[in-house]
């Protein structure tokens, strides 16, 4: 594996709202995709041991928007040669989703939804310190129909 350019932000995150445009009062889905480098893993949302750091996605409060709860994919049980402990981890590409509801009186225009992903993971040769990475999605609020 190549050296990590930044060990505090080593996951590739992207976020979007589905559908990208909502009218006031409508519901949608917030989707965050997480690319975990090959050979690496991060702890699951519900890790195997109490001291391990859970993967958690959170969003800043935003007027007229209700987001959540976040839905996490099932973890992969991973038994390592070195331990009797069976870890619950994520590898590869993750898709995290959260329901999103737009208030009836929401003003039209572009809105930024800001969140943070907290996680702890390991490369093949080291375990990295717990990190928090920002994530942002844009929601287009459609103008009311005439």
């Amino acid at each position, binding site marked *: 594996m190549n050296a990590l350019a930044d*060990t505090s932000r080593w996951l590739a995150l992207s976020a979007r709202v589905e559908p990208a445009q909502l009218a006031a009062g409508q519901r949608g889905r917030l989707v965050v995709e997480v690319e975990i480098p090959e050979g690496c893993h991060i702890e699951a949302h519900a890790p195997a041991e109490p001291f391990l750091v859970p993967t958690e996605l959170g969003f800043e409060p935003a007027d007229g928007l209700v987001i959540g709860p976040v839905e996490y994919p099932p973890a992969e049980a991973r038994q*390592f040669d070195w*331990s*009797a402990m069976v870890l619950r981890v994520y590898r590869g590409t993750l898709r995290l989703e959260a329901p999103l509801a737009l208030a009836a009186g929401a003003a039209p225009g572009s809105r930024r939804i800001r969140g943070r992903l907290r996680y*702890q993971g390991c490369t093949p*040769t*080291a*375990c990295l310190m*717990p990190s928090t990475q920002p994530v942002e999605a844009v929601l287009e609020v459609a103008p009311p129909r005439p």
Partner: protein
Amino acid sequence: MQRAREIEHRAIESAIAAGHAAPVATYEVGDEVPDLVLPTLDGGVGRLADYRGKVVLLVFTATWCPYCGAEAPFLEQEIWQRYRERGVQVIVIDVKEPPEVMRPFRDRYGWTFPVWLDRTGELGLTFAPQKEGLPPEVAVINAHFILDAGGRVRYREYLNMERFDARARTVIAELEKVLEDA
């Protein structure tokens, strides 16, 4: 050697104070480790010099590290309880964590050996390997150093996922060698 290490320590401290990336001054096998002074988990002061005359196993750890958690019970049961009567001292150095985080971890695994706190990660800089792309305070997690009675490094081992052994059997074998030589 001692003088050189003191200079390296000062260079690291200066680099940290200046906000620059610090040079890594890793202790090699054969190097003498100067006295280390760190706060202990129990609110005291830990001094490496107090253990001169004993074989010392230094282990760098963090509660969030799954490898460290896997190894934690064996450090107490297989090393400390089996070797303390033979003049071995186990000391764990917790890297960049507050005591309230480490305390329940120690209690969970029933550790009865000293736990010291490297709150800033600065001490870890002097024990870390040079792993490409990894800051020293990360690369040093789960490092093991065996010091002989004179404080010289006799063995060191850094985390490698592919050959990790939670029972630390390699470390135990190396301890036996150092004890035989003593």
